[in-house]
């Protein structure tokens, strides 16, 4: 399937729940609300046609102050953040991207760590660098920055040259279950 066909399939299935569809250089993406994220991802994974069985990447984007300079006018996003899920189908060899729109006042997204184990660490990274909370995540600790770090480094309002020192390394890294680690 081409990415455009996958996008059409998602739009037919979810209708108005798709906030925005997007195509650029042959790559397609849909943006959905956090409450619909798990349904869309589960559909794409389990549907026989799309079979997007591998989650390759989870990455946040902060659109604070985003203004395209191509003359198309200001950005019309009503949300500040997006989290992009890059999906790949091992069997059918196609890719697709699902994005979730996250508001500034309540940056909460349901976790998908039970669907793909990689989401565990990837979501920890998005939490660490963007401050987006993942509901249902068993071990939502910082992963790249240290535990005493204040703020979230990849937010656009975090200064580029700000440094924060760690007073003492973390004592305990162990979780109750190894699946959560």
């Amino acid at each position, binding site marked *: 399937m081409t990415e455009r066909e996958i996008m059409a399939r998602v739009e037919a299935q979810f209708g108005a729940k798709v906030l925005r569809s997007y195509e650029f*250089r042959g790559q397609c993406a849909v943006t959905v609300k956090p409450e619909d994220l798990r349904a869309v991802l589960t559909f794409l994974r389990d549907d026989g046609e799309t079979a997007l069985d591998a989650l390759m*990447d989870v990455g946040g984007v902060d659109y604070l102050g985003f203004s*395209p*300079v191509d003359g*198309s006018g200001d950005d019309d996003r009503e949300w500040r953040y997006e989290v992009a899920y890059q999906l790949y189908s091992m069997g059918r060899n196609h890719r697709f991207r699902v994005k979730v729109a996250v508001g500034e006042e309540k940056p909460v997204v349901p976790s998908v760590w039970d669907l793909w*184990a*990689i989401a565990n660490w990837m979501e920890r990274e998005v939490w660490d660098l963007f401050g987006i909370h993942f509901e249902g995540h068993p071990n939502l600790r910082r992963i790249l*920055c240290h535990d005493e770090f204040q703020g979230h480094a990849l937010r656009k309002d975090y200064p580029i040259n700000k440094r924060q020192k760690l007073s003492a*390394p973390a004592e305990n890294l162990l*979780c109750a279950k190894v699946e959560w680690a």
Partner: protein
Amino acid sequence: MSVSGHDHTTVRPLPSDLLTLNIGPAHPATHGTLRIQVQLDGETIVNSGCEIGYLHRGFEKQCETVYYQFVIPYAERLNYMGPVNNSNAWCYACEQLLGIEAPARAQALRVITSEMGRIIDHAVCIGTNLVDIGALTNFWYMYNYREKIYDLYEELCGARMMVNYPRIGGVSQDAPDGWFEKLLRVIDEMQEAVGDVRNLVERNRIFMDRTIGCGVITREMALSHGVTGPCLRATGVPYDIRKAQPYWGYEKYQFEVPTAEGGDTYDRTIVRFQEMFESCKIIRQAVASIPGGPVMVDNHLVALPAKDKVYNTMEGLINHFKLVMHGIQPPVGELYSATEGGCGELGFYIVSDGSSKPWRVRIRPPCFANYSTFPKIIQGKMVADAVAALGSINIIAGELDR
């Protein structure tokens, strides 16, 4: 059975507490700054936790503050064991964003430099992994030829490790006279050396006993954890982006995607050996069929003009000035570009606002996904097995922590 009045069948083992032990962050076996905390029952690992981020340089944040072309040297510091693979991948991602294509000769040069990068990446991985489990000889074989590959890079562009060779729209310079012949000679010698090392370990009783069944990543675990590269192929999934979604003309070259079934340390090592041979094959074909022509795209929005134009024409001077001062400006859009790096799928997710600096650069580091399996695969194993497994996953801290 009873000896001197004691019934030994009812004797219980000595009571013992669990011991918490930190491995790293500065430990020779971690090959970088990783911290692993393990909980031991005797010598058996019952629980573990990993802490990463010791080498976090804020790469993604830094990318947002510089022009697209200035990211090329930064990208090479991701997987510093095969640096050119990353910068080639970054330039390819930018070209996709711009909607341009590098000339055929530049693409072939990218294939050659990337496969050289893959060979030295695997050479270091195998060499150091074998050192960790007590086989020092192989390390010298591998590093000897890694050095010769570095010499070739030096001759190509003046730098050895962090070569800063590719450019958005092509490569910085063509290969010097006689370079390809030297390359083929080194590749022949390298292949022989790799074959020697493989013969030393492939059917080696000690090595096999030590690594078979050690650090097993099952196929289900690999797919769920987004494991890619040799670690995934060692579980029997033949996923290689060079085959699945070819770029730079990889579809023209005949090569196999080696796989194994067990997913353990032994299989990962053997898959890497075979991949090095396949890379040698690809390099020979690429050299034999290298097309002529320019190595940089003919597009004044991307490529710097020739020096005689800069010095002798007003248009050339302005063009040079604009590109240096204002940078390359891709259209507004976002794109995910994946290539096969040394450790697996190296992805760049770029969001462009149309200015000369990327709005957001997200790197999908293969090591990050591969390493997330680590607490699971060392569960119930010994500390020494954890060290052997760690080396065979090929963790590059520069890429893991960014």
